[in-house]
C-alpha cells in the first residue's frame, strides 16, 4: 500500500476541483504514471485539460519522469507549464 499526497497547480487544480489530494494505491511498486492514471480515471476533466498542456511532474520537489518510482509518504506535484505568450 502506497499513500501519497498529490499537489495540483493552476488549470490542473481547476480540473480536479482541489489543490491537494491524498490517495492510496494498493500496489507494491508505484510509479508516477500510476498516480496520474488514478487521477485520470476519477477526474475526466483532468484528461481534457491534459490534452492541451504538458505536465511537469515532481516527487518531493524534484522533477521526474512518469516511470519514476513513488514511495509511501511521498509528495507528488503536477504542474501545467503554460505555453502562451503572444
Amino acid at each position, binding site marked *: 500500500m502506497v499513500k501519497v499526497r498529490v499537489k495540483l497547480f493552476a488549470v490542473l487544480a481547476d480540473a480536479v476541483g482541489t489543490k491537494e489530494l491524498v490517495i492510496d494505491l494498493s500496489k507494491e511498486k508505484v510509479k508516477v504514471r500510476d498516480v496520474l492514471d488514478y487521477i485520470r480515471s476519477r477526474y475526466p476533466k483532468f484528461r481534457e485539460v491534459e490534452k492541451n498542456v*504538458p505536465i511537469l511532474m515532481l516527487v518531493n520537489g524534484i522533477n521526474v519522469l512518469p516511470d519514476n518510482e513513488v514511495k509511501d509518504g511521498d509528495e507528488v506535484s503536477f504542474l501545467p*507549464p503554460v505555453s*502562451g*505568450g*503572444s
Partner: protein
Amino acid sequence: MAPELSPGEALTLSDKEKVRYSRQIMIFGEEGQKKLKSSRVAVIGVGGLGSASSTYLAAAGVGKLVLVDKDVVELDNLNRQVLHWTRDIGRLKVESAAEKLRELNPEIEVEGIAMEVNEDTIYDIIKEVDVVVDGLDNWSTRVVVNKACVKLRKPFVHAGVHGLYGQLTVIIPYESPCLQCIVPLIGTKPKSGTFPVLGTTPAILATIQAQEVIKLITGYGRPLIGKLLIFDGTTTTFTTIEVRRREECPVCGKPST
C-alpha cells in the same frame, strides 16, 4: 550565482545617460549601467510577453535589442500586446515595436527581424546576443529556441502564460535545467492555437523576465536559476519550486565537452 557574461568592452556613459538611468545607477552603479549598454539581448516574439519585456529592457538601457517576430498586428492582439496600438493593425509587429522602443529610448539600438523562428534561422540570431528572452506562444518553437540556447551556451529567460496563469525560469545551459529537463514531454504536444489570456498576465511575467535579464547582465541579485516560478493570478499567488537537470535530457544531458 549569476553567470559571467561577456558583453563588449566597457563604454562610457554620456551626461544624458547618467541622468536617464540615475535611479537604477543608484542600485548597480555606473559599472552596471555600462554592462547594460554594452549588452545585446534578443526578444523572440513581440506579443504579450515581448511587448512588456522589450519595453522595460529598452527603458533600462540595454545597448542593443533584437526583436524577432514574423506576424502582423491584429485587432485581437490589442488587449495585451501593448506596444502595438490601434493604428498599427496590419503592420509587422517588429516594425511597430521597434518604432516605439526607439522613441522611448533613442540611446539604444533596436533591430527588428520579421522571420519565422526555426532550426535554420534562429542560430544566427542567438549567436550574436548575450541573453535570449522568451516571448513565444507555443512549445514547439520554444523547444527549438531552448536547444539553440543550450548549444550556443546563451542564457534563456523563459516564461509562458495562459489565462491568469504563468511560469518563469532562467536557464543557464549546462548549469541549470533546460526547458526539456523541466518538461520532458514538451514537443510531443501539438502546437497550441488561440488561448485565453488577460493582458496583465504576460505583463507580470514579462516584467520579471526583463528584471532577470538585467540581473544577469549587471550581476546584481540572484537570478531565478534552477527554480521555476509559478504564478496563479486567480489567487495572486507566486510559488517557487526547485527544478533539477536530468542526466538523460536529450538536449543538455550529455557532457558539455
